[in-house]
């Protein structure tokens, strides 16, 4: 019998052109990134908050324990969008599936943060600070990336949403934007008075200056029309246009919430399916908005942890461990599943209840930063993800 993890391993090794005897599901290559022009590259990081159920995103329908564990919330095999003989995507992820078929999307099905935590809030903090442990860092790893990416010539980032997420928080001022602002000539006059008044205010001064600039730009991108908040896809299109604008930021961050499906999770339809539909619309909007620059774009979607392997008593799932990371974008190197599949066999579950992780989420982030943005390997280990030598960058994700 072929163990699913061996299938994964062989497929991945083949995709990466590495020897199948490495014994690792991912190939870790040393050495500096090739000298290349990274100036056109764009990165979108999406934090799926509330613990996204990875087993409903990259559905392991070929794993013999999947159906017995999931029962009523299992996605029926005939509705799954198949990736290979073991995995398929949730039927709501149509855009993602089309991208995968074109070699522009991949999933890593068993990824976790470095510490075993079942608190949403602590786990999100760890995911966003990029620390090896809780409280090891107080700034976000993307903020540190801004400085590390091109020493002396920092790149810029934009947070999409009314609140600034921890992943972008830190000494480098990030831009932020959400729909609904409206600048008038009156605003400009008052704003000028306020800029004076904020001259020595370390919080409000930089925030207002950056905010006004971004708002101006948003209005320009929309042909002068303010954008409403209801249309997810249009929102993602505008977010993408920020990135493609001349001298636009390199990185954008946004959050999707509502993934905490303790009860009535649903399967093909329902609570989780609705959230995944929104996520798929965001991906579609990004692709549309990036237009010609989609080929230079990588999108990474990660969540704080996964959910219990078995359906709970209330048609939902409780806080678990490993979940799925999604990669999409024209910059991706085509390939199969990323990382080992630990299987859902009873003796493989973490603490007898959760999908066990085979890959540290930092390894995926690091792989993207090295290959896509050309972040220096030494800075990656010291500044962006300190104490992460145990999680070497996953190579071969970016073309």
């Amino acid at each position: 019998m072929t163990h699913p993890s061996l299938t994964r391993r062989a497929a991945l090794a083949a995709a990466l052109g590495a020897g199948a005897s490495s014994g690792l599901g991912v190939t870790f290559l040393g050495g500096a990134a090739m000298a290349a022009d990274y100036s056109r590259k764009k990165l979108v990081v999406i934090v799926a908050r509330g613990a996204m159920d990875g087993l409903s995103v990259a559905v392991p329908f070929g794993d013999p324990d999947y159906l017995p564990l999931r029962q009523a919330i299992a996605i029926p095999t005939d509705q799954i969008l198949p990736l290979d003989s073991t995995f398929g995507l949730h039927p709501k992820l149509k855009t993602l599936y089309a991208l995968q078929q074109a070699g522009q999307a991949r999933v890593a099905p068993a990824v976790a943060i470095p510490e075993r935590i079942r608190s949403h809030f602590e786990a999100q903090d760890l995911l966003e600070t990029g620390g090896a442990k809780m409280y090891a860092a107080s700034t976000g790893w993307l903020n540190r990336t801004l400085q590390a990416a091109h020493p002396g010539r920092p790149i810029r980032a934009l947070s999409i949403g009314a609140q600034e997420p921890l992943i972008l928080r830190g000494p480098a001022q990030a831009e932020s934007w959400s729909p609904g602002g409206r600048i008038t000539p009156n605003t400009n006059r008052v704003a000028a008075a306020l800029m004076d008044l904020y001259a020595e205010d370390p919080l409000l001064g930089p925030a207002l200056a950056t905010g006004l600039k971004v708002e101006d730009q948003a209005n320009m991108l929309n042909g002068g029309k303010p954008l409403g908040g209801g249309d997810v896809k249009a929102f993602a299109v505008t977010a993408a246009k920020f990135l493609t604008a001349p001298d636009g930021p390199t990185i954008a961050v946004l959050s999707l919430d509502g993934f905490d499906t303790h009860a009535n999770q649903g399967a093909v339809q329902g609570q989780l399916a609705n959230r995944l539909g929104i996520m798929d619309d965001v991906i579609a909007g990004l692709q549309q908005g990036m237009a010609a620059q989609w080929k230079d774009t990588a999108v990474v979607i990660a969540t704080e942890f996964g959910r219990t392997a078995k359906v709970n008593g209330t048609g939902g799932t409780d806080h678990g461990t490993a979940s799925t990371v999604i990669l999409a974008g024209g910059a991706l190197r085509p390939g199969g599943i990323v990382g080992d599949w630990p299987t859902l066999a009873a003796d493989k579950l973490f603490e007898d209840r959760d999908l066990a992780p085979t890959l540290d989420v930092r390894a995926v982030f690091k792989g993207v930063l090295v290959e896509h943005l050309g972040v220096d390997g030494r800075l990656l280990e010291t500044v962006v993800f300190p104490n992460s030598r145990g999680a070497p960058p996953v190579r071969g994700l970016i073309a």
Partner: protein
Amino acid sequence: MAVDAHALNGAIAVTRFGLGARPGEIEEAARDPHGWLKAQIVSAGADQPAAYPLPAPPPPAKLLIPIASTPAAGPMMGGAPPMGPPIPAPPPFQPVLLSFVPGEPLPTMQAAYRTFSLYQDQTKLAKGDNEARKAAAAPIYQAANEEILARARLAATTPAGFRERWALFWSNHFTVAAKDTPVTVAVGPFEREAIRPHVFGRFEDMLVAASRHPGMLLYLDQVQSIGPGSPTGIKRAGKVGLNENLGREIMELHTVGADAGYTQADVTEFARALTGWTMGGANTPPEQQGAFLYRANVHEPGPRTVMGRLYGEGGDDQARAVLRDLAASPHTADHLARKIATHFVADDPPPALVARLRAAYLKSRGDLSQVAVALISAPEAWAPAPRKFKTPYEYLISSYRAADTAPRDPGKDIINPLSSLGMKPFAAPQPNGWSEMGADWAAPDAVVKRLTWAQGFAAANTPQTPPPDEARSVLGARLTDKTFTTISRAETRPEAFAILLMSPEFQRR
């Protein structure tokens, strides 16, 4: 220029501890800032919002036809007659709008539940008819709007701003948010019934009231949790089971905190103890519907061990005993002390202040009036420099207070601006509630949104007081020369008021 300490403390009492100054309030507080605050601590708890009834919206036309008769096809539908035996005509839809009578208390959880249960019946009948479903939900959202407005009007007009802020703190500590339609009707009643009466009582009483309130039981899925070894659990094995959401969040968020050293096993054991805590639903007698109900037949039998303590089988009392010990734990004292200090004084609060609050909690056995007194008495809480950046709700409410007016329209005046600032009322995205950290609310986009809102607000609500006098009245001794000068130079009165609302000292407290 040396600032008169009394005058400064008056301004701090009203803005840092309270919800911002209404005209004349700082002068009044400055006579005795500590006394002004302490007088707001009353054993009856926080004030209850009073109804400010909105004009009832005209019922949508859709409501006037019996929803379930869709297949019977009146002339409007133009469809074929139904196949098979005739469907008995359902009762025509009668939207039950909860009654919001001026000055009367708002509807109870049980009254709110009746609206929800009607909504459920009608959505079942409406099937796939989206318009009919929307119409059925309208009374629920109308009720939520009434709640949001009543609560904001109380905050905007109360002379006891500290008392209301203290209540809002606890309401956020025990977050119940409108994650779906049933919870939407419960958010207002939850705060009014489980939080407000207990804010100056014993923490344990508030913890028990919050954990047993249908709002919390619905929000954290406890109503669905069934002990696998209970009679119902055995009978419906494989179909029902434990849900550990409430148990986990009580430990992590409401009491001891995530760093208290408990394990997954403790969470599961506590979840087992909590089974049976549920809400009376459609199949219970009317007097139990929408009320807390202990169901022995879903309670997991047997003793439980939580954080090293053994709890004998005690039915309903078993989870209560766990709550009692959680409330008494020094970890809870730590967790609450830090959170209160963070809310009132600084994102990174002085350790001495945290220690004082912790000691007051432990010494008084969780008497929250004593903790409030300790906060008011702590010198660290009166440091002249403001270290808190207002949340959008605090910012909006303090602006209304500065203008000496109150919101009238829940959508335009409250929900829309707060949504665009990332703080939609009754809708905290996660059970840890709204952030207490300034950095979360001062993103560049949020500052621009504040500016555009402040200008619109000032255009509609600028007081007739000369702007420099208005600034002194709103900020007292906290007003800086620089802001004073900028305001004096403004072109128009609304512009001056907008600058006041956007000044660094008004946005902080």
